[in-house]
């Protein structure tokens, strides 16, 4: 009975019964994975500017239109930020479109050093010759605070 349980546990861990148990693999975030995406857009977080706790800092989000879509430069891109303890975010920011991409720079202030989590709803729009799409993906990312 005990042997069977050990065998089941080993199988559940994905290990061969004949090999020694290995530590669970650490899931490494794929840096190329977008924060949010659909067939006509993706949202990415580029390298962020340095930020010091207690000061106004800038965080950037990049939206890329895919396929025959382009960034809708008439739409008020913004991040409607979720309330996060210790982090104040003004998600209105400044949006700079450049053809198929656009960068939203938002201002935030983190109380303490460490990782500040910025989360919320990214309001964006992309268009092609026929249609415009308005999307509101939920996104979240961390910014290192000194």
């Amino acid at each position, binding site marked *: 009975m005990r042997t069977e349980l050990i065998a089941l546990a080993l199988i559940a861990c994905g290990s061969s019964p004949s090999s020694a148990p290995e530590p669970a693999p650490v899931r490494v975030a794929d840096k190329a994975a977008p924060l949010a995406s659909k067939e006509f857009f993706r949202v990415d977080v580029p390298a962020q500017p340095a930020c010091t706790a207690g000061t106004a800092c800038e965080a950037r989000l990049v939206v890329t239109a895919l396929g025959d879509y382009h960034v809708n430069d008439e739409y008020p891109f*913004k991040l409607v930020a979720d309330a996060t303890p210790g982090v104040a975010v003004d998600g209105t920011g400044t949006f700079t479109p450049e053809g198929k991409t656009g960068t939203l720079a938002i201002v935030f202030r983190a109380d303490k050093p460490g990782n500040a989590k910025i989360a919320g709803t990214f309001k964006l729009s992309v268009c092609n010759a026929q249609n*415009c799409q308005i999307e509101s993906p939920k996104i979240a990312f961390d910014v290192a605070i000194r």
Partner: protein
Amino acid sequence: MRSALFVALTLVSSTAFAEPAQTPPKPEAAPRKAEVGKQAPNFSLADLAGKDVKLSQFKGKTVVLEWFNPGCPYVKKSHSVGSLIDTAKRVTKDGTVAWLAINSGAAGKQGNALDDNTAAVNSWSMAHPVLRDESGVVGKMYGATNTPHIFIVDKTGTLVYAGAIDNSPDAEGKSAPDGKLVNYVDATLADLGAKRAVKTPVTKAYGCSVKYAN
């Protein structure tokens, strides 16, 4: 001579609240373009039930024209959370204002299907007619470029406003400058009600492009 000239001019001009001239227009003549401050061109379009509706039948009322496409995300936002959610019902309640939605989408284009329009009317509890302008003649005559795109004709038949429904281009009423939402239909009707000049007669419309055939 003066009387004859007056009669001739009256017959030739086609205005919002005048029936079409007796003399048929020359085939090659382009329709008169709508222009703020001038008489709005008349039109006749069928509603979703096939019944003809003429602008001229609303003589004596202020008429709001809303370019419409039920498949456009901006129209969806405006009618479900933005400024169009209740404006039509509110301003037409006392009977002095009529509201006409016009769909200038060509056959096969987004939002053209009769079923889609009927579903939108039900979903958004629209009490006003949706007129079908598949040829796009009326849309182009008014210079409608977007959905939504609003035009307001006063009770004398003069076009007094052309532009956006509001100053919040997210269509949700949440992106107005300084957080001060201006509903341009309300603002225009307030000016007309107070018998003063319309303060903002033209604004830039936002939204989807009108899905004309070409």
